[in-house]
């Protein structure tokens, strides 16, 4: 066991503070819009904190560090693309401004407004499937990190991780987005402190020039040049550009932050600022992975190398702060993702299938029930499923199951009047099919990912040109619907 009393005290104090803050949010829930999008009242700085906290988890640090360990400095291209695309979207308002103006609560909701109810249901099914599969490995990866750094035997840590998931479930079910936003803010500060501390220690322990020399010796030019790297290349870079455009506009948990801000102008600013954070979100943990390569050498388990390195270089006290920071990262992501995927099941599958609209109270109750369902799945999937390769590729592809088709269909819906229901169906199914080729046909991630977007695009264009035209829905979809205000 690496943890001292001091470390445990820091971690338990942090957990108590988070729970109290989360439960505090419960009394401010008076309807579905409060539960799902915090009453659409989030300001710029809180918007940045909650967006960053939602998309920076222990799993983020683990898979990026794994990439750094395996591919050296060439991995930085992924962080650069993620940040640059987000800044571009923030500066231009591409897609996000239009979506915020429509006062949506979920991404598939747009599909009903612009296309058809049945397409919304299909999209909801694909979004929930991809999203829950994506989240399914989080607990296992997070548990691995905490076990190695704290020294807790793995069989006990599964119990601890389950308890933490239940704590998150408690404040997510009760307080919804309000609780998530409050805890995100606290967690954002904690995980950022943790990230800065680890970065400084890693550079100090491994040596900046030494990291360069080790990467050059073990990987040659491919350790620096992303085009020459055997793991990346032009096809992968092209896929990443499309992938990050889609993630930043159509990923449900990111979109919920777009929908939660006070107005479209704030949404754009949140993205611009958060884009700079995303540069660090990628490159800092990648550097930790490179430091692990320099300190431990090649031949380690690539996913575990970074936490093994941390367990050796972190002094007592700091270990507790770092683990608290990582717990913060874990809880912020898990709670937001629980809310995101459960809201899609409740709002975009169950809701539209019923012919009678649910009351606001019933919507909240249904969302809470779906939170529980998703939690149970995540617990069992994580224990059973074995990753087929680097975690980053699995996570990219499970997301692409729906974002490939969603991105193309939403962009088509917002900017091309001829985009039709038939095109939407073809795009969603084409995108899902391309992504599933990763699992079924064992395609490399770059081919499956790029293929998903290409099939979705072809499906939208051909389906729209060949299928029945819609003449009234385009204008109607741009109006704020009656009853959207509470």
């Amino acid at each position, binding site marked *: 066991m690496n943890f001292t009393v001091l470390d445990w005290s820091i971690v338990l104090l942090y957990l108590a503070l988070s729970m109290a803050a989360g439960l505090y949010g419960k009394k401010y829930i008076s309807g579905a819009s409060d539960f799902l999008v*915090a009453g659409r009242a989030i300001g710029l700085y809180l918007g940045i*904190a909650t967006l960053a906290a939602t998309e920076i988890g222990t799993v983020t640090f683990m898979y990026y560090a794994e990439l750094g360990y395996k591919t050296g*400095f060439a991995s930085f291209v992924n962080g650069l693309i993620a940040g640059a695309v987000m800044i571009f979207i923030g500066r231009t308002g591409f897609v996000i401004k239009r979506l915020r103006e429509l006062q949506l609560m979920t991404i598939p909701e747009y599909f009903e407004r612009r296309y058809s109810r049945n397409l919304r249901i299909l999209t909801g099914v694909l979004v929930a499937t991809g999203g829950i599969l994506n989240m399914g490995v989080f607990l296992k990866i997070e548990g691995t990190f905490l076990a190695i750094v704290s020294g807790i035997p793995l069989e006990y840590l599964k119990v601890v991780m389950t308890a933490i998931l239940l704590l998150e479930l408690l404040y997510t079910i009760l307080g919804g987005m309000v609780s998530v936003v409050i805890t995100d803010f606290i967690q954002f500060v904690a995980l950022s402190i943790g990230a800065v501390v680890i970065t400084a220690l890693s550079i100090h322990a491994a040596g900046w020039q030494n990291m360069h020399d080790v990467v050059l010796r073990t990987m040659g030019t491919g350790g620096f040049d992303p085009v020459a790297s055997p793991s990346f290349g032009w096809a992968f870079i092209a896929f990443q550009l499309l992938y990050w455009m889609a993630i930043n506009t159509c990923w449900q948990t990111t979109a919920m932050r777009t929908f939660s801000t006070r107005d479209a102008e704030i949404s754009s600013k949140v993205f611009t600022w958060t884009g*700079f954070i995303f540069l*660090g979100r990628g490159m800092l943990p990648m550097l930790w992975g490179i430091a692990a390569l320099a300190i431990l050498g090649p031949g380690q388990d690539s996913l575990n190398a970074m936490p093994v390195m941390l367990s050796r270089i972190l002094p007592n006290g700091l270990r507790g702060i770092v683990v608290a920071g990582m717990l913060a990262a874990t809880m912020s992501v898990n709670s937001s993702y629980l809310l995101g995927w459960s809201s899609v099941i409740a709002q975009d599958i169950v809701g539209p299938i019923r012919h009678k609209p649910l009351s606001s109270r019933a919507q909240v109750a249904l969302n809470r029930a779906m939170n529980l369902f998703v939690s149970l799945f995540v617990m069992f999937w994580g224990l059973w499923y074995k990753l087929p390769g680097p975690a980053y590729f699995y996570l990219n592809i499970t997301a692409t199951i729906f974002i490939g088709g969603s991105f193309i269909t939403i962009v088509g819906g917002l900017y091309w009047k001829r985009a039709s229901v038939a095109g939407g169906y073809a795009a969603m199914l084409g995108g899902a099919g391309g992504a599933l080729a990763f699992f079924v046909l064992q395609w490399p991630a770059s081919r499956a990912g790029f293929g998903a977007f290409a099939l979705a695009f072809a499906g939208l264009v051909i389906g729209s040109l060949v299928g029945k035209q819609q003449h009234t829905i385009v204008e109607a979809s741009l109006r704020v619907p009656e009853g959207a205000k509470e």
Partner: protein
Amino acid sequence: MDSATAWWRFWEFCFVVAGGSFALIVAIVAIRGLVDLRELIEFLKLKRHTPPGTRQD
């Protein structure tokens, strides 16, 4: 300058920008975000005490 060195210099620069902006933005957001949080709570308190027919989003 060979390719590996050129890329190395580029990634050094990117890392400094990434790390520096990360730390700076975190510091700003941590301070200013407290104000936003207080305003959100005030807004939701007001909404809770406003009758449904008169509410505006």
